[in-house]
């Protein structure tokens, strides 16, 4: 990777250089202050860089080489489902009929785009086992917020006002953050000895002030909650809704459906299970699927298919006339470019292929887990809950910390020198020194073997000299960074 000293695009600026050549002025020129009052005119141009096209290209290509990426190496980042991003999807998303389509073009002239959305809605409904889908939410966290606002609207419609939302102590951070944003109070539910929901604790806390239980299944430990039917019964018994965080859907596509488990509202991360590239942190999309009783409150507009008159072709339309809707979650119709890629992925795999993807994801995870039970990994990094896992598993680095003097963070940083992106670390919170490993279905067995060998080597090295891991990494563009200093004296833009 690129290790030269850092120069920003602003520091490459040289007065007089430029890349863009704009069209000539082809209308009569008028003094600008005749068009816009002088007080509203900009006095000084913003100090954007002055750079030529080749300089821009070289700058961004060089800094790109300071990134680790999925196309180059193994990325077993738990809960993020870093599966291969098919290149075909980029090609079809870039077709001008998709890419240059204005969102306010009248429905009769965007029939292809609305059909893409409708087909994706139907596919997600089938995969989730819930009949109605809104594609609008822009990300998983946005889907969660939509889900809680739907819950609020549902209860309000019944004349009820509820104040609490239950989340397990293994939940993603977005769950409690969303609860607060949606105006509810978080109540934590404990986990039991098998890593599932502590059903007694749930029963004690599930009263009629509870609006919703937010759950991931399989959960963030990578374990399927075997008592899901009982959990659903308890939650529904109080009149609350059951919300499914779809972060881990990649484990169960075509095998078990959230709707069949009793969930009322599900969000799906299209950038996880449905192969949208993560982009260094977006874009993604977080469509929601819901049951009949939640449907009237879905965001507007909704894509609908109207049967053609006299046997004519069906017409796809945007339905704005939804009087009980919670309203819009965002502008326009959602992250359409993501929908195109995800639909292409679903068409590529088909129903059987999706099931096979989940089966292979679980096979890969259990195989890597088996490898982690061997040798030094088995000794120093025991699995937190020793069961068959689903698409991911969680190891505890507490013994490595105690017996070798290397923390989970050190192991993660040493993995960088071996050319791997580390697993998710220090999450979930209930596992001490957690390492959360999600290999995904698209990795070959040799890759998993090589990763297991790297872990073994790092632990063997730590037995000899823990300082090596403690000071890692060594081979990256920069080494450990001063994050505390960055927070104390934030420099969040370049002084010019």
């Amino acid at each position, binding site marked *: 990777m690129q290790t030269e000293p850092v120069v920003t695009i602003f520091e490459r600026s040289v007065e007089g250089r430029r890349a863009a050549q704009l069209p000539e002025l082809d209308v009569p020129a008028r003094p600008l202050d005749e068009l816009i009052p002088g007080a509203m005119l900009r006095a000084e*141009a913003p100090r954007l860089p002055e750079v030529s096209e080749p300089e821009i290209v070289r700058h961004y290509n060089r800094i790109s080489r300071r990134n680790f990426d999925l196309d180059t190496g193994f990325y077993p980042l738990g809960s993020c489902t870093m599966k291969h991003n098919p290149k075909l999807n980029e090609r079809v998303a870039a077709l001008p009929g998709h890419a240059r389509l204005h969102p306010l073009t009248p429905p009769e002239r965007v029939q292809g785009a609305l059909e893409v959305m409708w087909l994706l809605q139907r596919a997600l409904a089938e995969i989730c086992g819930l009949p109605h889908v809104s594609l609008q939410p822009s990300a998983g*966290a946005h889907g969660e917020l939509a889900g809680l606002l739907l819950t609020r609207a549902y209860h309000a419609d019944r004349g009820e006002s509820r104040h609490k939302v239950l989340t397990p102590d293994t939940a993603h951070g977005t769950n409690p953050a969303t609860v607060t944003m949606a105006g509810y109070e978080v109540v934590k539910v404990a986990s039991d000895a098998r890593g599932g929901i502590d059903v007694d604790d749930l029963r004690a806390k599930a009263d009629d002030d509870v609006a919703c239980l937010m759950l991931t299944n399989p959960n963030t430990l990578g374990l399927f909650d075997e008592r899901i039917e009982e959990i659903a019964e308890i939650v529904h018994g109080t009149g609350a809704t059951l919300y499914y965080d779809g972060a881990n859907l990649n484990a169960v596509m075509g095998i078990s459906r959230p709707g069949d488990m009793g969930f009322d509202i599900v969000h799906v991360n299209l950038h996880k299970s449905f192969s949208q590239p993560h982009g*260094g942190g977006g874009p993604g999309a977080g469509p929601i699927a819901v049951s009949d009783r939640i449907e009237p409150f879905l965001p507007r507009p909704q894509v609908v298919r109207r049967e053609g008159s006299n046997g004519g072709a069906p017409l796809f339309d945007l339905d704005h006339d939804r009087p009980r809707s*919670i309203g819009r979650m965002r*502008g326009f119709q959602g992250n359409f470019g993501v929908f195109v890629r995800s639909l292409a992925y679903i068409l590529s795999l088909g129903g059987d292929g999706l099931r096979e993807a989940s089966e*292979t994801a679980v096979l890969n995870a259990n195989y890597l887990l088996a490898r982690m039970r061997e040798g030094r990994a088995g000794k120093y990094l025991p699995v937190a809950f020793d069961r068959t896992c689903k698409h991911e598993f969680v190891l505890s680095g507490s013994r490595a910390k105690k017996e070798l003097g290397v923390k989970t963070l050190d192991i993660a940083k040493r993995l960088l020198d071996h050319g791997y992106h580390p697993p998710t670390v220090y999450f979930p919170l209930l596992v001490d020194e957690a390492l959360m490993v999600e290999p995904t279905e698209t990795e070959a067995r040799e890759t998993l073997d090589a990763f297991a060998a790297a872990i073994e080597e790092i632990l063997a090295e730590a037995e000899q000299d823990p300082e090596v891991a403690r000071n890692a990494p060594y081979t990256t563009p920069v*080494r450990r960074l001063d994050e505390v200093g960055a927070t104390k004296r934030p420099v*969040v833009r370049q002084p010019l």
Partner: protein
Amino acid sequence: MTRYTSATERDREQMLAAIGAGSVGALFEDIPAGVRLDRPLDLPAGMPEAAVYERMAALAARNASAEDEITFLGAGMYDHYVPAIVDSIIQRSEFLTPYTPYQPEISQGTLQSMFEFQTAMSELTGLPVASAGLYEMPSSVASAGYLAKGATGRDRFLVSRALHPHAREALATYAAGFGAEVEEIPLADGATDLAALESALDERVAAVFLQQPNFFGTVEDLAALAPAAKRTGALLIVAVDAPTLGVLRPPGEFGTDVVLGEGQPLGNRLDFGGPSFGFFTAREEHIRRMPGRIAGETTDVDGRRGFVLTLQTREQHIRREKATSNICTSQQLNALAGVIYLSWLGRRGFVELGELMAQRTAYARERLAALDGVSLLHEQPVVREFALRLDAPVGAVLRRCAEQGVNAGYALGRDYPEFADGLLVAITERRSRGHIDRLADVLGAAVAAERTAAGVPA
């Protein structure tokens, strides 16, 4: 075996043996029978790559995109040219395929581009701090509402009726959750009514929301509106159309607390409405309440310059229920396109773009308003978008124009019933004088034809 997996039959057997399981099915035995799907998914069988391409291309062909017609549609998203370097750079796997930069040592490319993005946004808006990208403009407005409620402890929002309808609606959607009232400030001749704003203000108002230029293209008089809005201690939040900031004074210079906006016009495709990004800049005092990721500059153990995600104690993965937002995307790839685009335009190009749009818009406005049956909806100053009234049914006129290959603009009636005869027309650098003249011909003929059909004497 799908084409995106690598496990052969032999791999499977050996892997299952290592696991100690008899079959793949055994790995799912802990799923209770009652919640297992006992049939195949009801979806079509998978297709070869070429067949998927053809299917998706056939769908794309059923859309009338800006490639197919001369479009004057705007209303929040605009047909600007996206330079080839944007595609080339954002398709690099090093930017396209990583996740959020949680491991900064191997994410310096992403983190540096975030820092550059924040610098560029701060330059445009005139406010000192910027976060990395948010989803898009309307939900950024809603996030600003959440910030304002937290910062002031108040729960009433005043929203200009000239703020984008999607933003007003998203704010109301969010506010129903976190608890705030949203009240509209009416229009006076295409601009926010200053007197109405002044009389609606009280000590409960957490924030005043304006748009610059507003939804009707009007350059709002921030010199008058800003001090009025801040009189009772409310925050002032302004949504801006970024490319107009080449000519317009940055809202940050008027004492605005938050300036935010839609990133699509900055190097992002139309994509039928997304993905794009929202930008969010603020006064220094709000930095610890900002939504979204923020990159900061620091050094490594060897003293080398580097970048990290900073102020993470605002964020959900650290603060959980006490986070200032639940967002955990930065629309990174879209924001990267934004900063590449701004580098491409550069300091002079950005101003030239604003000036070119202002001149062509003035020409177009005059040209169209001179047509029979067409008049101005307001006479306020504009930069790149303006509103007309048609003395003919707008929907029918638009259909006639579309038949001539011209998308004449956005019909205002759905969002503004009081302007059922309204048409919003947007100009970008891609709309030449020739295009504008063509629009004038087609629109004039369409209005005339509709008036003839309705029996209006010529």
